[in-house]
């Protein structure tokens, strides 16, 4: 029986994390988490306050993530934390104060590595009643900001990290975790949504300053509602660049989506069918822009849905 995290006391949550029984339910996955320290606790209480959780798992979980010291020494002396999803991952230890980042990285790695029920594509996804917009781009290309911006115009959050494409039909599945914001995007999004929605900034991380825009209750409430794709975008933010959109043919879209997938080769034939199914009847555009407003205007023009 799941409940909102915010009904539990800090001590209850701390104990469950320490015991390794804390279970977070989100989208198609359940996550068993363990870890220590106030940094992790405060982050979860703040940023995951509206998420469905259990203090002990009622069923087998998809993801098991332990946030732990890399060795005994580092538990006590200049404490560090590293995500451990139960197998070797390319993640370096971080100071304990960056537990938020370790947590988010750990979940990303777990889903990217473990998930075999979906084709994973590195992309932001939002959706309205007409369907989902898949925004595939490398880190730093602006997809998180665009994702956050679209949420202010009637779209709901599916994910800012993964497009989860179903294997039994080209459907996108929501996985609305907090949107990670880096460096300059933090003040941009903060201005968009207000302080209350942005976590404390994790300063000095290997990726620079990082903060998280927590998922809205109404998006979490619909995390079991998938959607068909209506549009595929390949966004590229570059300061000062004139906004332009260039439509891609399906072959070009596939050529970009496949390398952005974390498990296309592994899944093989089902992934081939899923990706080709996704681009069928779905327009794809490459968009370049120098500001959030320009990006929204481009989406507005492409979709025909008035936003600004």
């Amino acid at each position, binding site marked *: 029986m799941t409940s909102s995290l915010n009904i539990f006391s800090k001590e209850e949550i701390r104990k469950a994390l320490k015991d390794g029984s804390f279970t977070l339910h989100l989208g198609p996955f359940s996550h068993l988490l363990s870890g220590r320290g106030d940094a992790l606790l405060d982050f979860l209480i703040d940023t995951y306050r509206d998420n469905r959780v259990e203090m002990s798992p009622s069923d087998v979980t998809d993801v098991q993530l332990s946030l732990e010291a890399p060795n005994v020494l580092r538990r006590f002396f200049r404490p560090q934390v590293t995500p451990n999803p139960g197998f070797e991952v390319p993640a370096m230890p971080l100071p304990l104060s960056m537990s938020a980042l370790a947590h988010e990285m750990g979940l990303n790695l777990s889903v990217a590595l473990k998930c075999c029920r979906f084709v994973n594509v590195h992309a932001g996804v939002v959706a309205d009643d007409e369907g989902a917009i898949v925004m595939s781009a490398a880190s730093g290309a602006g997809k998180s900001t665009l994702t956050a911006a679209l949420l202010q115009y009637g779209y709901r959050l599916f994910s800012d990290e993964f497009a989860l494409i179903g294997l039994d039909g080209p459907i996108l599945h929501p996985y609305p975790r907090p949107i990670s914001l880096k460096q300059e995007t933090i003040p941009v999004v903060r201005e968009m949504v207000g302080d209350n929605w942005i976590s404390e900034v994790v300063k000095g991380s290997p990726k620079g300053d990082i903060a998280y825009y927590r998922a809205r209750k109404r998006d979490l409430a619909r995390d079991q509602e998938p959607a068909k794709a209506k549009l595929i975008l390949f966004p590229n933010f570059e300061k000062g660049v004139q906004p332009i959109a260039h439509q891609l*043919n*399906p*072959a070009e879209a*596939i*050529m970009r989506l*496949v390398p952005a997938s974390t498990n*296309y*080769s592994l899944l*093989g*034939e089902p992934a*081939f*069918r899923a990706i*080709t199914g996704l681009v069928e009847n779905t327009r794809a555009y490459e968009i370049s822009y120098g500001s959030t407003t320009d990006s929204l205007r481009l989406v507005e023009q492409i979709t025909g849905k008035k936003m600004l």
Partner: protein
Amino acid sequence: MASSGDDSSQVWTSDSSQYLSVMYDDTHLVYFKPSGETHFLNFLSFGLIDVLSEKSLTIDGLHELIQDRFSLTADDIPKSLLISTLAELDLAGLVSSKRVKEKL
């Protein structure tokens, strides 16, 4: 096994049950099941595997059939281009060849 060029004793073949394909205009996305690899083929390379899936042919036979299929001439599709394209397809496993005994 890669072919060694224009060898009239070689017969080429393909097997359409070994791959899935989707067509986008003149581009074909092909998923080859045995290797798990995904390839983009153009009209010529796909045309070759399509034809060879129906009938095993020598280079000469294939050259003739392909010209007919696409309403093109031998000048448009030099035999050397056919051979090099078959070599690419062979490397990917999409076609294979075998030697046939010449009739006495």
